[in-house]
């Protein structure tokens, strides 16, 4: 059943561009329910062969970090460069690292 709102609820759209790759967020759209959101996503976001698989998620189901928390959230990682695996000697000829 459609709720009697002036606008349909918002959905976030994730698309996998090729088999084996991860789904990536591409945008959002309005739709009456999950099935329609999937069809709308197909019509709006895959017109130019952008994908082979689609996920839709109600926007209300997303919990986002608060921009005001940027410092406490992300700042502490800044001076801990030893967390990057860049301190190893990699044998020559080893590719895709």
């Amino acid at each position: 059943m459609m709720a009697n709102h002036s606008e349909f609820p918002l959905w976030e759209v994730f698309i996998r561009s090729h088999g084996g790759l991860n789904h990536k967020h591409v945008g959002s759209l309005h739709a009456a329910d999950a099935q329609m959101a999937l069809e709308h996503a197909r019509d709006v976001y895959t017109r130019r062969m952008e994908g082979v698989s689609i996920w839709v998620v109600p926007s209300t189901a997303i919990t986002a970090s608060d921009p005001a928390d940027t410092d406490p959230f992300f700042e502490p990682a800044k001076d801990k460069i030893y967390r990057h695996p860049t301190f190893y000697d990699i044998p020559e000829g080893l590719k895709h690292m």
Partner: protein
Amino acid sequence: MRDFLLLLADNTQILGHRLGEWCGHGPELEIDMAMTNLALDLIGQSRNYYQYAAELEGAGRTEDDLAYLRDAREFRNCLLVEQPNGDFARTVARNFLFDSWHFFFLEALCQSSDERLAAIAVKSLKEVTYHLRWSSEWVIRLGDGTEESHRRIQDAFDHLWTYRGELLTPAPFETEATSAGYGVDLLSIKPRVEEKLTDILSRATLRRPEDAWMQSGGKTGRHSEHLGYLLAEMQYVQRAYPNSVW
């Protein structure tokens, strides 16, 4: 064979044009894009048939001549597809009545003895599978939606029902096509079309209108008053500036 090809070409061309009229006017951006996608699919399909028909003629005419330089009486499309868009419910009902026939028709056309027709059918069927899904889902949602959407989609079916009979009633050139092996026996697909209609209408909590008097004539060139206006717009550029290209 020419009339049979033109029937398929004109059906898809005219419905494609009607859906194109929604461009920029859809109730929501997503629906607007969905309808123009459908329009492009249908116009693409019509080109395949027009090209084939023009080649068969061998008179040096092209697909454009057939689409843009014929008059209403020469069009072979069913009356249903030329009916005006009306509100969104009217468009959805019109598309569903067409799609639920088109899908099973193409399924059968894949078995055509004519290889090129069969190949066009195979390609079109992929698109039309989605068209039928799209219009079915919308019939269900409008029917099983709010009081207003239910009333509007029911009105739409009541209004358009009289045009559906023509889809399943063969014109003389279709009977000829069936016996020659390249056409589709409409009687053989009828049960499946009816089953689809009944299933979707009942899931949409809609009343199936009575099968009373059915309009006909489109396939033999006797059209409703709407086709002339549609062609005036669709053919305007080619008529006003003959042979213009861009």
